[in-house]
């Protein structure tokens, strides 16, 4: 199955670096330097300790499927999923370039940027 082919979301000052990096093919995460924890989705303020000492870091793009669902009532069925990143946080995405019947929770997946209908590319995952 393939991606949803939606436009990329409107960006804002807090997160525009993520989309700039995505345009360059880099996947970055927001991490707190006060408590040391990365989080998702990216925020200026750490959701664990409320510190404003957060910064971007390069991420591996490796993860495992936490959960997924094949959305069948759509023009073209697609797989929505949560993927747990190697760095810890779990993020929402689509699983692409896959046979949906062969997916499983716990399966290893790898990030792939694909063009959106408009705007910067979106972070999807495919079987590793």
């Amino acid at each position: 199955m393939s991606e949803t082919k939606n436009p990329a979301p409107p960006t804002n000052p807090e997160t525009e670096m993520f989309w700039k990096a995505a345009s360059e093919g880099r996947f970055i995460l927001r991490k707190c330097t006060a408590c040391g924890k990365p989080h998702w989705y990216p925020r200026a303020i750490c959701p664990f300790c409320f510190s404003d000492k957060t910064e971007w870091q390069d991420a591996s793009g490796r993860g495992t499927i936490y959960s997924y669902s094949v959305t069948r009532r759509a023009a073209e069925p697609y797989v929505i999923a949560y993927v747990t990143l190697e760095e810890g946080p779990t993020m929402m995405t689509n699983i692409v370039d896959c046979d949906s019947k062969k997916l499983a929770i716990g399966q290893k997946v790898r990030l792939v940027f694909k063009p959106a209908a408009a705007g910067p590319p979106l972070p999807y995952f495919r079987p590793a």
Partner: protein
Amino acid sequence: MTRKASAYIAGAFEHPTRKAPDKSVAQLHAEVAIGALEDAGLTKHDVDGYFCAGDAPGTGPLSMVDYMNLRLRHVDSTNIGGSSYLLHVAHAAEAIAAGKCDVALITLAGRPRSQGAERGIAPRRDNPVQPDFEWEHAFGLTTLNTYGMCAMRHMYEFGTTSEQLAWIKVAASHHAQHNPNAMLRNVVTVEDVINSPMVADPLHRLDSCVVSDGGGALIVVKPEIARSLKRPLIKIIGTGEAVRGQLGGAVDITTSAAVWSGATAFAEAGVTAADIKYASIYDSFTITVLMQIEDLGFCEKGRGGEFVSGGNLIAGVGRLPFNTDGGGLCNNHPANRGGMTKAIEAVRQLRGEAHPAVQVKNCALALANGIGGQLGTRHGSATLILERE
């Protein structure tokens, strides 16, 4: 039992319509307000507090207060999706205890069926400025597929099966057959559910609630007023509210905010899940019910599948009669928000006014729980524990 309570539910009304192409949303709000006031034996002029949520047209309570031309001392439009109205009962009781109002009116109404707003399958039209929008919307998040992910993970962690989930729908259909207003009155089997089309794996069409027009209203009053009325005394003895989301990325979608709101409500009421004779459990999908039953402590976490199997939720058959009106799965899900009808059926049961075929004998203690928003992303939970005096 004589527990002290600051407020009572004196009026409850469910609009009989399930399709209202010839009415406005504001009109439906006013019609249910009239119905609940008549049920209580009160009038419009007695109302001094008003509560509504995101289904009320206009900014918070402003337009509906103006439409109904109410003169109030207290308003509250806290919006936690479909569970808002159970939270409003709690907030009304708090406002009454604080002397801010004496007679609180809570309304819900909507017409998604007439408007063709099948929100379950359409990408959600959330506000692009809300901070999570940017990280979810583009991936085709819908109500259906986020609950699908909850069910998929629950099956993975606890071995829950589609057959077990189907029992929840089967129980609701057994109740709905006795409700002349219910949208789906045919009794279904486990096979019917698992053979219905898959809509968002592992959820089937019959794992999902109906889309209906309609509404409902409640009247919450101070004790002195409740005792002056001719209705059974239904007191609010425990309430809880909680919001739960993605936890900064430590996502856990097999536990709901009911684990928090329920604990608060039970502690306040001084009762346990084992004491509850009837439960209204929000049933947007079968998995929603299963997770709340676990999180409210009716069974151990992960054992919900076993608990609901074999008719354990069917009135007169099982340990925990639930949603004896047929619930959102079969009866009614007005405005895509099921919290109001959960409170209403709990009141019917406590008054002894449920359909005789599903009335729980000596029903003195009931629970109503609602989930609003989406279990798989962020949601509110509101728990009410009600007692007949």
